[in-house]
């Protein structure tokens, strides 16, 4: 059924008719295609318009984000001065709002009157004029706004022109306002005042944005304040801590001073007796020498005198030896006390652990002697670098604790030994022991099982700190009813 060749007129008419139909169809197709094209073009236009709108709104939201970001960055200013932060806020916000001049007023706590504190002007020559002085920015004579803080509700677009004219006629063209109260806290309230010469349309979105900026500013100022407060409290706490440490030391001194007094008193009493005896001996000897020198004949008591002198000659070295020993004992105690009192001088010296243990035992001997028998096993042959006084403080503390743990009469064993690179000082008692529950809290500051007024609860926490500063450790093992072992591990030299 191929296309027929045109042979007759009839064929020709038929062909023309077919062509006509085809032509009409094609024309309609074209019209339809044109319609589609027009529709597409109009859609494209709409899409373009929509895109443009979206572009504008995204530019706007970019600016908004930029604005809020700038305000957020005010937090990094590290300025204690709230007014200077507010001034920067005025700068950022004025540029965003196109506000020709903006002011901040501080609300007087007593009178609720508003006193100007800072300002910002868009035009640069105005900025220059007001750069140095925040006082003159609204005119010399002006001191307070004739509006009270409490009467300022978030007044938007309020006409403050009258007030402006009163303040300074030069600014009377700025007769449109946007006011925002800013309450940092009860005692610190500001009023932020943006002014415009034209009643430009501040749309809801812009106003909401500035309000958000204000909220942000408020939290920055509050944060700054609480930071300051926190710092002050921290300083106070630090002071209190050093006071407490001092009082703990005083408490230890109180505990051991009775013992020290006794230790000193003992040799002192026989020193006194010995000295009195020696004084009498001297009188006898001097008498004897004088008589010999003046050539006076020794009387009939000669034999008696000779006997006395012989006794003195015999007895004196013994008395002297005893006295010197007593003096030496006192000196040792004093030395120990001095080392103890030097606890905080922080000077690091080499010292002998065994000597340190001896000093500590002397300081607390009175505390211990009625409660326990003390066994010593000093085997360490090495030295430690650090503060001797501080280690004495630790040892006396632990020894007193051990004695206090013993209910009637027990044994406290103190030993030193070398273990690898360390020296281990062990203090072992057969007292009542420490419960598991308390063992965990042992080194916690202010934790104490002693009645109120008898312990600060700082002894072990301070001891722990001291040992830590010596790069050592304190380990505790304890069983209730059996006893406790404290191991102090210190790095040896």
């Amino acid at each position, binding site marked *: *059924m191929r*296309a027929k060749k045109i042979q007759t007129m009839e064929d020709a008419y038929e*062909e023309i008719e*077919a062509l006509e139909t*085809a032509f009409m*169809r094609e024309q*309609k197709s074209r019209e*339809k*295609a044109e319609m589609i094209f027009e529709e597409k073009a109009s859609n494209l236009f709409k899409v373009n318009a929509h895109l443009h709108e979206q572009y504008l709104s995204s530019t706007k939201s970019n600016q908004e984000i930029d604005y809020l970001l700038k305000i957020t960055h005010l937090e990094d200013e590290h300025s204690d001065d709230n007014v200077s932060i507010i001034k920067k806020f005025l700068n950022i916000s004025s540029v965003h709002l196109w506000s020709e001049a903006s002011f901040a007023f501080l609300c007087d706590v007593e009178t609720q009157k508003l006193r100007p504190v800072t300002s910002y002007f868009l035009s640069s020559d105005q900025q220059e004029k007001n750069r140095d002085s925040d006082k003159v920015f609204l005119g010399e004579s002006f001191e307070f706004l004739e509006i009270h803080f409490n009467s300022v509700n978030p007044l938007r677009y309020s006409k403050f022109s009258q007030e402006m004219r009163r303040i300074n006629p030069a600014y009377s063209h700025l007769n449109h306002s946007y006011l925002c109260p800013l309450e940092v806290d009860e005692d610190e309230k500001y009023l932020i005042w943006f002014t415009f010469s034209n009643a430009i349309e501040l749309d809801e979105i812009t106003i909401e944005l500035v309000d958000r900026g204000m909220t942000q500013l408020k939290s920055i100022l509050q944060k700054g304040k609480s930071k300051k407060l926190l710092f002050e409290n921290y300083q106070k706490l630090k002071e209190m801590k050093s006071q407490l440490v001092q009082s703990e030391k005083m408490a230890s001194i109180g505990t051991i001073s009775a013992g020290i007094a006794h230790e000193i008193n003992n040799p002192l009493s026989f020193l006194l007796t010995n000295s009195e005896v020696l004084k009498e001996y001297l009188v006898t000897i001097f008498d004897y020498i004088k008589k010999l020198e003046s050539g006076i004949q020794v009387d009939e008591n000669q034999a008696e005198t000779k006997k006395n002198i012989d006794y003195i000659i015999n007895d004196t070295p013994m008395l002297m030896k005893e006295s010197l020993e007593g003096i030496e004992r006192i000196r040792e105690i004093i030395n120990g006390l001095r080392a103890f009192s030097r606890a905080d001088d922080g000077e690091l010296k080499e010292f002998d652990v065994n000597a340190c243990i001896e000093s500590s035992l002397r300081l607390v001997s009175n505390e211990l002697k009625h409660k326990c028998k003390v066994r010593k096993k000093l085997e360490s042959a090495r030295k430690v670098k650090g503060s001797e006084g501080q280690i004495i403080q630790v040892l006396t503390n632990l020894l007193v604790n051990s004695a206090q743990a013993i209910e009637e009469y027990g044994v406290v064993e103190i030993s030193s030994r070398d273990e690898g690179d360390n020296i281990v000082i062990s203090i072992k008692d057969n007292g009542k022991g420490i419960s598991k529950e308390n063992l965990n809290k042992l080194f916690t500051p202010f934790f104490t099982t002693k009645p109120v007024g008898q312990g600060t609860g700082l002894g072990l926490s301070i001891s722990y700190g001291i040992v830590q500063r010596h790069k050592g450790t304190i380990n505790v093992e304890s069983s209730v009813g059996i006893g406790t072992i404290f191991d102090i591990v210190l790095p040896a030299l």
Partner: protein
Amino acid sequence: MKGIIFVALSEMIQKMYGHKVWNNFLSDSQVSSQGIYTAAENYDDKEADLLLNSISKGLGKNKNDILYIFGLYLIKYYKRKYPASFAHKSFIDFMLSVDKVIHVEIGRISPNSTPPKLKILDIEKDKFIMHYFSKRKLCHLAQGLTCGAARIYGEDIECKHLECMHDGKDHCVFEVTYRKGKE
């Protein structure tokens, strides 16, 4: 179905058999568009069925043969209208681009269109397997398009219909073999 297919079909029939014959097919099939086709619009798939029935009846030919021949014509028509889509180096590159580039692009331009899916697997030096998925089941058209495309790229191929949707399979499978050695 895309209007461009109807435009190409009307062009082919009018070229081969004259306007009168096409006019008759249109009036015989009673298609609702009355044959007023534009390339960009989508038309009811039913319209294609009706036209195919009329053409088959009028020409006394098997529908599958008509679709195959139309496939050969349609690919040339496409090349005439969209030469850029045929810029591939080889036949296989072009075949791979059909599903991955051309049909994706069609979907983007007219989101309501539902082009068929072509999966080309087991590519070897001298043959590959083509899987055809379409709710329209125009596998013979696809076969014609494939053979026509091969000709455009100077290839002589055999396109064997291994499995067919019309035999109850869920999609059609073709084995395409290059006749001449392609070293």
